[in-house]
């Protein structure tokens, strides 16, 4: 088959000088014309390698074929057979390392923009509500299942369990759904309205969501069984911020990425004082780390008025874990990057507020356990960097609360992750787990994949009972 010569469609984005001052969405998504052109680039190869890169196993070529035919209703239905959160995944999935990384067209140039197409069909459905099909639910069973945590893993598990016909209650400790999707990812990358829309869809499948309930405190795991839940899925995520362990980290003006982003995203601090939760931001803000969370923090800092918003990362750009699109967007928005730079201490003034950060310059040595070249300090390269805000975005560990309050749950001593068997079951019969709580910090789609797998395992477990 002749390869289509149309180039990959550019995903339109707002002007950087305008968008780095507000919180409206940066990426605009494909127009209909672009979507159809892009869909027509797919050569519908037989092996469908892209599907192997999708943790929730969307039939990618099939939905793309429907887009090319302008059957958008058919396309969204095809996606929703596997993915309950398409508008979210279309925006925040690292497609370049998943589905798109395996696209046959890579050999001949650029892969099909699968993520942008997914977003297009999800948004198109929302804009044309008449096109919505009621979801297919298998025969309703009178069996209660509890899902803990309304993040990507929990939402997916809950949706699939509801489709299997169970009575699902989803318990969330915050006052809104989404977990890290809400408190972590800023409005300019994932608008809350999209999250609300996909949450409504999950509810339309019959899932009941109870907010402001912290399992492990409000109810124990034992309480849930006592209340008649026959199985429990734990999707409580990686919500324990890591710090660097350097002097001065508890000075005023040092935030964990989670605190900074939670204030802004969940509590709307960027609309202070209309919303009453404050966030303080200085003129010179350093964000330590170079993952997606670090990019989110630094771009938020810029939008909140920081004159200089700087990424400080101990390795080079090539090792930065952030999605390329986020790095590029950050650069366009005048974010400064200091690669091969490692902070070693933070100094404060007499009031206990940050005034500077001392850094060492690094060079790359031999590869370490992660396969990336290890950063090695350059002797005598120490220098002081004046800053008034430091945000630590170097990752997070599993939230320890449930393990802490449920002594029988087996936990990996080193990582703090919950141990599960090949059926996603923890050391307690009937309790399943998945997502970051079992793997450490991962991607949204990987957590969704885990939620899906666990839902299937729970169905199997309950049928056997």
């Amino acid at each position: 088959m002749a390869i289509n010569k149309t180039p990959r469609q550019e995903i339109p984005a707002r002007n950087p000088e305008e968008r780095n001052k507000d919180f409206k969405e940066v990426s605009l998504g494909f127009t209909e014309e672009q979507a159809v052109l892009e869909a027509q680039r797919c050569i519908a190869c037989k092996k469908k390698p892209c599907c192997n890169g999708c943790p929730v196993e969307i039939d990618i070529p099939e939905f793309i074929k429907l887009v090319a035919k302008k059957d958008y209703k058919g396309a969204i239905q095809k996606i929703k057979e596997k993915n309950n959160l398409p508008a979210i995944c279309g925006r925040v999935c690292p497609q370049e390392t998943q589905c798109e990384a395996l696209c046959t067209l890579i050999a001949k140039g650029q892969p099909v923009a699968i993520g942008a197409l997914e977003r297009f069909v999800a948004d198109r459905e929302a804009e044309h509500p008449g096109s919505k099909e009621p979801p297919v639910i298998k025969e309703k069973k009178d069996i209660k299942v509890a899902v803990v945590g309304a993040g990507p893993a929990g939402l997916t598990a809950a949706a699939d369990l509801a489709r299997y016909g169970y009575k699902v209650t989803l318990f969330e400790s915050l006052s809104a759904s989404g977990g890290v999707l809400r408190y972590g990812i800023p409005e300019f990358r994932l608008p809350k309205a999209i999250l609300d829309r996909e949450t409504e869809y999950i509810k339309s499948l019959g899932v009941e969501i109870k907010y402001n309930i912290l399992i492990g405190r409000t109810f124990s795991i034992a309480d849930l069984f006592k209340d008649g839940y026959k199985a429990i899925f734990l999707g409580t995520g990686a919500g324990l911020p890591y710090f660097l362990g350097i002097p001065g980290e508890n000075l005023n003006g040092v935030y964990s990425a989670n605190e900074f982003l939670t204030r802004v995203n969940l509590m709307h601090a960027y609309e202070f004082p209309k919303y009453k939760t404050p966030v303080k931001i200085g003129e010179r803000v350093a964000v330590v780390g170079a993952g997606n969370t670090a990019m989110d923090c630094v771009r938020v800092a810029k939008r909140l008025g920081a004159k200089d918003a700087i990424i400080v990362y101990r390795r080079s750009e090539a090792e930065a874990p952030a999605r390329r699109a986020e790095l590029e967007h950050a650069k366009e928005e005048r974010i400064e990057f200091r690669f091969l730079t490692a902070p070693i201490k933070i100094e404060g003034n007499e009031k206990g507020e940050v005034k500077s950060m001392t850094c060492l310059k690094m060079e790359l040595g031999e590869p370490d356990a992660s396969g990336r070249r290890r950063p090695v300090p350059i002797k005598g390269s120490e220098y002081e960097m004046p800053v008034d805000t430091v945000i630590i975005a170097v990752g997070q560990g599993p939230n320890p609360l449930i393990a802490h309050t449920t002594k029988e749950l087996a936990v990996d001593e080193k990582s703090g992750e919950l141990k599960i068997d090949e059926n996603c079951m923890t050391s307690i019969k009937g309790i399943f787990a998945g997502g970051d709580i079992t793997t450490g910090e991962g991607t949204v789609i990987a957590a969704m994949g885990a939620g899906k797998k666990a839902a299937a395992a729970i169905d199997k477990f309950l049928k056997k009972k």
Partner: protein
Amino acid sequence: MHKIAEKKQLADTITLMKVEAPMVVREAKPGQFVVVRLDEFAERIPLTICDADKARGTVTLIIQQLGRSTKDLCALKAGDQIRDILGPLGNPTEIEKFGTVVIIGGGVGAAELYTAAKALKEKGNKVITIIGARNKSLIILEDEFKPIADEVLITTDDGSYGIKGFVTDALKKVISEQKVDRVICCGPIPMMKAVTMTAKPHNIPAIVSLNAILLDATGMCGSCRCTIEGKTKFSCVDGPEFDGYKVDFDELMARNKRFLDEERRALEV
């Protein structure tokens, strides 16, 4: 939504509310707290569970007006609704038979210790309560503590009621008269520091309840981090109670001032 079943003014700026929160009441234990969000625009405020009525499903909260959010909360009337209440949170107070326990509440901090005092008394401890405040009008819960404590001492800075002086003056007096096995304290940070310093020369364990600035209160954000024996801990999940000897009070004092300017701005609107 959580209905305010009862409201009582305890002092000029201190309000007591009984709020319907049956989910919270089920597991609530002494020393635990809730996070309250009045409405969509409000902050998440930590408030001690001063008492829990399991039959009625209400929690008793005592709120001191400090900033915008507590002012808005105190302005509510009986029958009004509070949007979110999350809890119970934090580790419960250790309730054992220690012997003689001195419970020290500074200002609204007394509210925190009421259920612990009750439970410690039931466990067979001798309970001595010291309640301190700037002046008489700010003394709360005296009548409530009297039936459960073996002794209730009141101190006021200006001498308008009880002993003139600080809670530490009363504590020194108690220590000089009898053997004390444990001190539990909740109040302003300088007060908790002073109480710890007073107990230390006598090797009396001093437990303090830290009021760090919280956000999610589930261990996720690290806003409430404090240094305990040189290590960073999160007061929401590792606390709120800690061994006073190990707490870096000066750091906590500085950290709790970090949003003063913003708090002032919020009060202006």
